[in-house]
């Protein structure tokens, strides 16, 4: 039997149509280990030919076979997105080449996006400067709205678009000890999410993990592209994507200290952004007519609940960041409702 990387190369060279191959050169590989030694993460293979500086393709493989569902979700939704909006998708996301199984391992093969990941943005000099954050936020909001508009389509079977938010709220209660006030806020939030969904006539494809670490500034055209669609889903509510970008940015800037301290610092930064960043961001996104965007407080609380229980629901364990999201939930109870 061949080595895994050799089988990967053979498979990559077999891709293409009847009369042409996508790749013709022998491939060299760079293997990037994501997440240190987190066995719930993926390993990323960048395939090179002998001539080009940039990789020809990217292959994602889970460290543990049972986590292949994440890559299948990513492949299915990238494929749906490409089918839905056609070649315009090249401006936003990688092209899905194939989902296959090699040596019992699920393998997702996609195109490489040349550019800089926004994870390079400095915690202090960038995220601490509201002018710069505001400019980026406006750009992110416009790109997200454009993409949402492109995938917007009528809801045909509302039952298939259940939010599952109640299950997430139940898990949140199960994992974390809530005060009576927090419990009441959570119950109200569940009701709001459910009732607002009933008003929507259209669904959009949301990315599900919409933070700056999953954004790449295209090297050639300078526009933002979005990667890592493993938590993507169709939804009538875009709040998760819209507000998660703000919360994740604030938490990234508040990098030091305990979970409680980080949540407190991030909340303080979010409050500072109320004057400039958040209004510009939400204004650039605009108010959707056919699908739901919750109010700031509700949308941010929803993000905290979803993030705090994601590891427990998807992988059956509690991630070290879960408590931070739970603390952020607590802080956001003090968020003043917008006018």
């Amino acid at each position, binding site marked *: *039997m*061949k*080595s*895994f*990387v050799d089988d990967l190369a053979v498979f990559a060279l077999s891709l293409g149509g009847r009369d042409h191959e996508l790749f013709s050169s022998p491939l*060299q*590989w*760079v*293997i*990037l*280990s994501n997440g*240190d*030694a*987190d*066995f*719930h993460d993926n*390993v990323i*293979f*960048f395939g*090179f*030919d*002998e*001539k*080009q*500086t*940039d*990789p020809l393709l990217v292959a994602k*493989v889970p*460290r*543990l076979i049972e986590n292949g569902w994440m890559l299948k979700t990513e492949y299915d939704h990238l494929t749906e997105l490409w089918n839905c909006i056609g070649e315009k998708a090249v401006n936003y996301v990688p092209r899905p080449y194939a989902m296959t199984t090699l*040596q*019992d*391992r699920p393998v997702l093969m996609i195109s490489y996006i040349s550019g800089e990941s926004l994870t*390079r943005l400095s915690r202090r000099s960038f995220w601490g400067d509201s002018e710069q954050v505001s400019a980026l936020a406006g750009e992110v909001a416009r790109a997200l709205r454009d993409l949402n508009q492109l995938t917007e389509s009528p809801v045909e079977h509302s039952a298939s678009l259940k939010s599952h938010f109640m299950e997430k709220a139940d898990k949140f209660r*199960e*994992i*974390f*000890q809530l*005060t009576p006030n927090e419990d009441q806020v959570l119950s109200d939030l569940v009701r709001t999410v459910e009732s607002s969904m009933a008003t929507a006539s259209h669904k959009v494809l949301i990315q599900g993990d919409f933070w700056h670490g999953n954004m790449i500034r295209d090297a050639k055209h300078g526009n933002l592209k979005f990667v890592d669609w493993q938590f993507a889903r169709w939804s009538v509510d875009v709040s998760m994507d819209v507000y998660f970008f703000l919360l994740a940015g604030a938490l990234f800037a508040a990098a030091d200290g305990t979970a*409680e301290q980080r949540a407190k610092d991030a909340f303080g930064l979010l409050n500072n952004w109320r004057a400039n960043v958040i209004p510009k961001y939400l204004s650039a996104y605009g108010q959707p007519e056919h699908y739901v965007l919750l109010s700031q407080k509700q949308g941010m609380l929803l993000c905290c609940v979803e993030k705090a229980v994601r*590891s*427990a629901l998807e*992988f*059956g*364990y*509690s*991630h*070290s960041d*879960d*408590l931070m999201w*739970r*603390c952020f939930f*607590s802080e956001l109870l003090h968020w003043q409702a917008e006018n």
Partner: protein
Amino acid sequence: MQTHPQPVHPPQPRVFNYSLDWRFLLPIAEAEKFLVAFENDVDFSQTLEHVGIPVSNHLSFQDIRQKEKGHAHSLVLPFGLPVGFVGAEQKDKVEFYRSIRHLIGSKGYLLVGFNNVWNFRANIQSKYHSSTPRRIVDQLNQAGFKSIRIFGTLSSLGIPEYIFDLGAQAMRFAFYHRFRRKPVLLNVLQVLARAMDLARMSNFLPCYFAIATV
């Protein structure tokens, strides 16, 4: 009085000190048949079990001599040859490699991880011999191994962040992405890459994995 929020059920994920991504350089579907030899390390042993390589396939170097012919699909020495078991001379290492060839199945591989001799920081506390790509290739050739292929590794054998072919494109990409937050170091690497070609620079990586067939 409000208390600090705490999880009621805190099942934390097991945090491992090893990623075992060298598995992807081998036929990973046969992983449960890999023999893995290393100096006593309970944590490493538990990590191997976590990915389905059973304890019965974990070997001490003392055990290697007692193993029967063709027992393994592939043999993995993820940290190389132990100082306490294999002599420092070239001939000692060749002899050791020759002595383990019979353990590997006819379609199996040998994988050897090793720190570069220039990797002083890692070598100070290491229980394993350091080496260079040229020496390893030479030793494996002399011991009768074939199709020897070297992969560069940044920055440690335990949790390698990058493992890559030693071609120019792959090396350049790995350097750029590994050191992009260290512009001074990246500039030095670019100057060096211009002064001597990347093939020569490949001799100065911190560690490597070598794979070979029997």
